[in-house]
């Protein structure tokens, strides 16, 4: 590893892998940094090590990643796994922790390809052991072939819900119930995006088939499946014992030791906000995402964002976005002439556009439902500091609407995660109580370090002196 590069790419998912490969192939000095032990990001997690049995269960959407890895390995940019980036600056400085020691790297360009995360949604009992997200379950399986052996309930809305259900059926996991919380009326409201989505008919059919397969498997195995479900609740003392919900005027309850929840995917903006990228609000999916152009250029001249971090578009799009970003950087560094750039970018851009055709439909169908954040007063919202929904409503009623101020006063978002887990909920609680639309409130600030660093490590950090102005 060197200390200084043409470009540093943070995050080794499809976007980061494709971007760093493309840059290395163009002869640029690049380093790819990632927190995990192996490349692949969330979607292709652990792909260099999974067994053929795991790969069979995970299917070709997963093994697709092998090609991405192959290209990456051929291009062979510098790659540092287990590197936790805790601060990055618009001048190209990156501070990271690796093997319990922190250091600084610099680059002319930074590409933030830190991906997406599942939308954290507080509900009664969500902090009980036994409650986890569908993505979390999927990670356990990719990492160590783990699957539930005791009754498991799957609840929520979105493609990942069906995917995980499909995997669990394949693994013969004892599924106690599948609770789809997608409101029926969103099938109607999303329909107007259908014509455009049909441009990627194959992709849509894949989704339809997956859901049909899950339904069939559920029927065969006599697994209860409910649609239009509301009011999910995890019940138990020290450990999850059952899951309650309502469907129409029916009260549901299923004994279970694991509850897998999923309420969609949102960009992981922690590093983006810390470095100072400007964000805009998406009213359909209701999340903040960075303001970028097609190549991922941000308001900061040396900083690009690629992949799901710009907007959640999926793995294939992430790869295209990563490549487009690489081309834009190569052009700026004069490794591509204007003409070459045009030639090379055009087909990728076209593929990306095609890939994006079904997104408005999917985004509308799986939009967060209106009552998603109708959190009961006694439910915990900020896990780090133990702040309840009721306490937040109280402070909003006193006239506070800026999460930054709310944080300073009741500590909600003050803990080590800096509001990553409660941010979405606080935004919606503020909107609910004050009537101030989310997009008109000041986004929550993210301060370095975005990941905790021990004082000993900080004290020993190899950071050369920076000039103080």
């Amino acid at each position: 590893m060197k200390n200084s590069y043409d470009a540093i790419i943070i995050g080794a998912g499809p976007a980061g892998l494709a971007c760093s490969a493309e840059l290395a192939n163009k002869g640029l000095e690049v380093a790819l940094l990632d927190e995990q032990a192996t490349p692949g990001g969330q979607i292709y997690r652990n792909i260099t090590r999974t067994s053929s049995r795991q790969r069979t269960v995970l299917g070709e959407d997963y093994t697709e990643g092998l090609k991405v890895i192959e290209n990456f390995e051929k291009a062979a940019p510098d790659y540092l796994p287990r590197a936790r980036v805790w601060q990055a600056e618009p001048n190209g400085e990156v501070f990271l922790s690796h093997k319990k020691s922190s250091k600084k790297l610099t680059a002319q360009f930074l590409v933030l390809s830190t991906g997406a995360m599942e939308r954290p949604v507080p509900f009664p009992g969500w902090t009980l052991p036994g409650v986890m997200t569908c993505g979390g379950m999927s990670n356990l399986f990719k990492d160590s072939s783990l699957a539930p052996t005791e009754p498991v309930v799957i609840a929520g809305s979105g493609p990942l819900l069906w995917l995980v259900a499909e995997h669990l059926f394949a693994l013969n996991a004892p599924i106690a119930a599948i609770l789809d919380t997608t409101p029926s009326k969103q099938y109607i409201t999303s329909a107007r995006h259908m014509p455009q989505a049909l441009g990627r008919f194959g992709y849509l059919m894949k989704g339809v088939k997956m859901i049909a397969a899950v339904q069939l498997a559920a029927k065969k195995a006599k697994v209860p499946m409910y649609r239009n479900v509301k009011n999910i609740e995890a019940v138990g003392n020290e450990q999850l014992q059952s899951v309650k919900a309502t469907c129409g005027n029916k009260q549901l309850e299923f004994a279970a030791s694991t509850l897998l929840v999923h309420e969609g995917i949102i960009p992981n903006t922690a590093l983006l906000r810390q470095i100072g990228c400007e964000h805009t609000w998406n009213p359909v999916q209701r999340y903040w995402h960075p303001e970028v152009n097609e190549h991922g250029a941000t308001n900061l001249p040396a900083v690009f964002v690629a992949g799901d971090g710009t907007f959640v578009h999926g793995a294939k799009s992430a790869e295209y976005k990563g490549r487009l970003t690489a081309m834009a950087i190569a052009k700026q560094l004069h490794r591509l002439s204007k003409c070459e750039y045009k030639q090379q970018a055009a087909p990728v851009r076209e593929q990306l556009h095609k890939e994006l055709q079904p997104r408005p439909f999917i985004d509308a169908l799986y939009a967060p439902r209106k009552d998603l954040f109708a959190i009961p007063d006694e439910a915990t919202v900020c896990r780090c500091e133990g702040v309840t929904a009721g306490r937040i409503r109280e402070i909003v009623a006193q006239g506070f609407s800026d999460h930054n101020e709310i944080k300073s006063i009741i500590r909600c978002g003050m803990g080590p995660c800096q509001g990553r887990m409660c941010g979405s909920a606080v935004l919606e609680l503020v909107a609910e109580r004050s009537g101030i639309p989310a997009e008109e409130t000041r986004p929550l600030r993210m301060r370095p370090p975005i990941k905790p660093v021990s004082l000993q490590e900080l004290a020993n950090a190899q950071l050369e002196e920076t000039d103080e102005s």
Partner: protein
Amino acid sequence: MKADVLIVGGGIMGCATAIELARKKKSVILFEKDEPGRHASGHNSGGVRCQGRDVREIPLAVAARAMWDHHEQTVQSDCGFHVSPRLRLAENDADMAVLEKRQALLNSLGYDHEVLVDREQVRRMSPHVAEHVVGGLACYTDGLANPLLTSKAYAATAEREGVTILSQTRVIDVQKTANGFKVRTSSGKQYEGETLVNGTGAWAGRFSEMLGDPLPIYAAAPTMMVTDRVPGIMNGTSLGLTGRLLGLMAAENGTIIIGGGYRSPLDLEKEKIWIDPMQMSKAAKIMIEVLPALRSAQMIRCWTAFEGCLKDKVPIVGASTKVSGLFHVCGFSAHGFQLAPMMGRVMSQLVLGREPELPLDDFRPDRFEQAA
């Protein structure tokens, strides 16, 4: 729109001044370019500290400290204030000599709020301090408060007392007129007033320049970090050092706020601060030497804010010597929070043309010219 007094800056200084003037039946309009408490006043480290103050500030600080006990009555909030004794440590004999001299000086001036403590007493107050610490100077009455809660309580009280607070309203132009001042704001409106108070914090020099009264204030970005919860280590005592830069505040929830003079590079125009990890690394080194038990504590967040500073490290509080009717309250050099309640009092007295209850000669705006 007209008022007796126009106040620029919705930090704690502007709001404290506004409250006192409104209580003395003056009409007040206060302009704040962002929100009250957005800058230093809402984002300082909450140290309510008399200890280690420049002797020129001590009378004000002692008077202010008494007022911190009565916020429930004066601003209808306890401001999150609680006592956390502050202990300034001597790491060697030379440090101890400095502290002894300091106590002797304070005693000769008639103050007894800083008390010398020996090796054993230090360990009773703060059981985890390193072996090499030989003694200290304690201030048992110092404490901590919640800065944003305090700033908001001040702003809310000002409004209750009838002050018009215009948030998101920047004063972009100000002119001296025959009978006072005329200001123009970013919302395109004009306001008139007889007197004008400059409480613009880090922007105070710039603001005052508009009236042809430049002040030698510069902006700095004191930078702090906070740890995860490490209950039991600080024992409720906040710490400072004598020969090196470090301040450690023992927050009630078990986290530790670390600062004491570290600064980050900034751009005041663009309102950007780049938190400098090198500074935090330096602080961490010293911290581990002083409290080895904190080695494995985690730094979970840094923060910073703009502060107006002066090279002699005490503020400018008083009437402009160049523009009649203009009053400054600025340049608190990273320790104004504690003084705020008292600043409201003396500023209102100045504005009303009365003799301030404590002398302010040391804080004259023209003191630098006199020295030159």
